């Protein structure tokens, strides 16, 4: 009732003055707070790959990345301000400067407490590897988590834009995505020649793990002009029997070597020699490809694509 009286024309002058003073006070308090909470007023919203609207400050300065590829992406996009990255997942070794950044554990099960204690103003996560529940948990704790998808090459391109946007450097993200798209275009043009090869990409030996249709590596095979022999598999990384591989009879087998120890992957490749019926074995096209460039969905994937193209087409 009092409120309406303040608004009413019958109000006495003294009262009106009182009301004005009150309004002014509120305005001044707001202005003072506005200047001290500069970060809040500059807050913005980013919609990530899970469809979540994430509130972020203009220039996040305490970034935690939950996968080696995201560490790489964030480091590239932060250019010379790599100190913005305050936490990375295990095996984040490129660029080498990231090896000095505190680790929050493996991407598959990172240490919640470490991430939380770093007080990040941006956490970068991926749909391909991070646990859904752990990401949810971080969000429940009030941390801004931006999740990217990398199921296809266009996802990878979009993830560059999204990370740039999240970090407050949209132009850099845009530039990187454009560079990626150009590189991809050139590789696709080069690859469009006759004589399609049927390719098996192997990522694990015991048990056999290969690349199915839902991984960006499937897109990679298509981009270099090959045919993934497990394109019909619904799983990201199916585990077929050797007999099934014999039946599908790939022209090329590429064993992707992950991590430092290449010997184990050489042994995996050597095992195929027992099956001379496979085209790839017959023509000597069982190859070991070393490189994080191939398996990390970052700008270095372009190098990886050239390497893989050579491995498949030569």
């Amino acid at each position: 009732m009092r409120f309406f009286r303040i608004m009413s024309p019958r109000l006495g002058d003294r009262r009106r003055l009182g009301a004005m003073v009150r309004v002014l006070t509120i305005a001044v308090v707001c202005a003072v707070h506005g200047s001290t909470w500069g970060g809040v007023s500059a807050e913005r919203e980013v919609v990530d790959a899970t469809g979540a609207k994430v509130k972020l400050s203009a220039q996040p300065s305490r970034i935690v990345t939950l996968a080696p590829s995201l560490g790489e992406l964030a480091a590239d996009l932060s250019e010379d301000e790599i100190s913005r990255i305050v936490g990375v997942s295990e095996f984040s070794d490129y660029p080498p400067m990231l090896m000095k950044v505190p680790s929050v554990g493996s991407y598959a099960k990172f240490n919640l407490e470490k991430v939380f204690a770093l007080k990040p103003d941006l956490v970068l996560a991926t749909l391909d590897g991070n646990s859904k529940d752990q990401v949810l948990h971080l969000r429940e704790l009030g941390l801004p988590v931006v999740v990217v998808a990398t199921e296809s090459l266009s996802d990878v391109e979009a993830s560059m834009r999204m990370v740039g946007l999240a970090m407050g450097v949209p132009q850099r993200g845009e530039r990187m995505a454009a560079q990626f798209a150009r590189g991809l275009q050139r590789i696709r043009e080069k690859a469009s020649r006759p004589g399609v090869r049927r390719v098996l990409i192997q990522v694990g030996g015991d048990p056999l793990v290969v690349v199915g249709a839902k991984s960006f590596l499937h897109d990679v095979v298509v981009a270099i002009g090959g045919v993934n022999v497990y394109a019909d598999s619904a799983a990201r990384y199916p585990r077929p029997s050797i007999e099934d591989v014999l039946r599908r009879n790939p022209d090329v087998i590429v064993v992707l070597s992950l991590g430092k120890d290449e010997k184990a992957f050489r042994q995996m490749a050597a095992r195929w020699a027992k099956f001379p019926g496979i085209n790839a074995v017959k023509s000597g096209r069982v190859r070991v490809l070393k490189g994080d460039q191939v398996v990390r969905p970052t700008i270095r994937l372009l190098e990886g694509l050239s390497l893989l193209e050579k491995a498949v087409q030569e």
Partner: protein
Amino acid sequence: VNRASGVFRAYVVGVVFWVFAFILALKLGAVPDADLGVITQLRLPRAVLASAVGMGLAVAGAALQALFSNPLCDPYTLGISSGSAVGAVVGATLGLNWLFSGLAGTAFVGALIFTGFLYLLAARPGTGNLTVLLAGVMLSFLGSSLVALWMSVSDANGIQGALLWLLGDLSRARIEGAAFSIGVAGLLVSLLWSRWREMDALLMGEEGALSLGIDVAGVRRRLILLTSLLIALCVSAAGMIGFVGLVVPHFARRFVGSLHLRLIPLCAIWGAAAVTLADCLARVVVRPYELPVGVVTALFGAPIFLWVMLRTREHE
């Protein structure tokens, strides 16, 4: 008088041990000097959930050992936990592990299905305890082969998390889920405790209890229902944490005897203390990684138990 003071001492030691473990759990973690946020939002829910789960597992173990007059029974003997393992693995790969505040929903559903089967079997007229026990063991095998079957036909992505979780993982604890768990576990434990006379009667075996005029079938149904719900809650909250349900009751019996009026609350306190301490160790021994808490309970618990058992034997 001597006996009573022994019982009193066992309780005091238990409470002190629990408080100590709880404080330690709040104090230690992956980061050395944690602020209030880390302590209240991450460590406190974990310590509360660990207490709930430890309490539940130890009491469920004691009740099942009484029910089947078998010292080898533990919360996993009846296969309820395999039911939740199936639920958890299926849920993880299909992406439908809907959660209530860190509790695995599909795991709980899996456990309820197995519980339902056991309950119906136990309610059938003329079914003996041994039949129920054997059916439980079979369910447990069925569950683990279903898990293996599912793992070999589905995508590997997501399964790793489910497998780690199966070995015991309290890292998903949220404060609401932890509060809910300790409330429900407390309620179920109290309900089981109120059945202490029936459990005491069962110590004389099925025949003995029958001749005391106990409705063995009814008692069995009720105990199976209560313990299964308790186990389903614990496993959905924290995966499978071995050792506690088997050994804490045996340990407690050495101090307060086999009568359940005294045994059940002591199991609750000691179980809570044991899992809280074990989870604290699991978080700090290989920082920044965490061990599955089930690994810690068995790794540290088994030798301690053996040592205590052999020592008391020598004294006798």
